[in-house]
């Protein structure tokens, strides 16, 4: 199969205006994902499905990722004048990065038996009504998994034919897979609590005060 760079070049030639970014991947499998900008996501997806060399006709998995607000640290070499001598000193520069949500698609080709190609979309921030573009019009199999992303992560997928909650009930508040979701405090006695459960147990059953 083509490398991500080749795919990127061909997408940008076929879909005018599309901005594709290849993201690094440190894991051993090392499939580098393609980051697609939401306005062109649908056209890019159609290209990936219909292109005779790619024919990515099977979307095996759709999932969400929650990225909290974070501070990125990077080492930068800077020149400083120390005791009249110019020296190169390594500095740690910290830049705040606002949180966002992400939708990830894993694509395979049944016809040409290759894959995966990983497609990612980012949302603008991680507020209550963030959105991305639904790819259900291209891959019908995305429908339930995109509903799951909507239900558990709260990403509104524009263009989805039937965007409702799928796992939690209607009337449920919040999106449980978000990292800042607070579950109902319904702790019950545990014989051997540990870690987070131990913290909860301490809160609910305060240790006896010894005289």
């Amino acid at each position, binding site marked *: 199969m083509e490398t991500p760079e080749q795919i990127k070049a061909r997408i940008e030639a076929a879909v005018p205006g599309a901005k594709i970014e290849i993201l690094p991947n440190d894991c051993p499998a090392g499939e580098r994902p393609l980051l697609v900008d939401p306005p062109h996501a649908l056209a890019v997806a159609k290209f990936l499905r219909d292109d005779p060399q790619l024919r990515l006709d099977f979307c095996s998995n759709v999932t969400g990722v929650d990225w909290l607000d974070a501070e990125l640290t990077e080492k930068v070499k800077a020149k400083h004048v120390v005791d009249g001598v110019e020296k190169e000193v390594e500095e740690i520069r910290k830049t705040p990065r606002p949180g966002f949500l992400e939708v990830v698609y894993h694509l395979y080709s049944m016809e040409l038996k290759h894959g995966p190609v990983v497609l990612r979309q980012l949302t603008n921030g991680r507020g209550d009504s963030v959105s991305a573009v639904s790819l259900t019009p291209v891959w019908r199999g995305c429908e339930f998994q995109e509903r799951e992303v909507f239900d558990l992560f709260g990403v509104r997928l524009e263009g989805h034919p039937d965007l409702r909650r799928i796992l939690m009930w209607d*009337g*449920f508040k*919040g999106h449980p897979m978000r990292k800042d979701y607070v579950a*109902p405090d*319904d702790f019950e*006695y545990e014989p051997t609590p540990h870690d987070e459960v131990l913290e909860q147990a301490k809160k609910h059953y305060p240790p006896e005060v010894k005289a």
Partner: protein
Amino acid sequence: MIDEGLRSELQKQGVYTTTLEELYNWGRANSVWPLTFGLACCAIEMIATSMARYDLARFGAEVFRPSPRQADLMIVAGTVTKKMAPLVVRLYNQMPEPKYVIAMGACAISGGPFKQGYNVLKGIDRYIPVDVSIPGCPPRPEALIHAIMTLQEKILNQKLTGPNRPRHLVEGAPSEFPVPAYGEHDLEPPSNPDVWQPPMVKR
């Protein structure tokens, strides 16, 4: 009541005596009809129990009924999620008395490995009375057969009068239990205090 020694003496002579109560309980215990109803992987073991190798038919309990109106026994086989719990209680309410419940597996009795999760009920005994609990994840078919035998023993020992009588013969005892409603994060109420009280820790 007839004396046990006299009774066995009479039986040797070919005279059989019984009581209405014994006959009634014998019939009930040997034709328990469970509800066709599975929630998760425990249901696979329940299916295996009813198949030829373990053969639940030996205990008269092989007639799985697809309607709660015809069932005596609800085998809660599997994880009860909070979304599913009101439906389980409603099915139980629709069963005619006398009715019994077996909670099968770690999830049905306590929430099991999902106990600390936001989405799983911490045991079906919070809403409906459970007669037999089977631990295990999932329990083997032998364990379910043992639970059926335990239930049969319980039915056989239920007198028609007195404090141990079945619930439907007790004046004013409930046959239906309140169905919990979906709240914003949890079920409302989170448990039925008439059926279940949280465990107390003694220090």
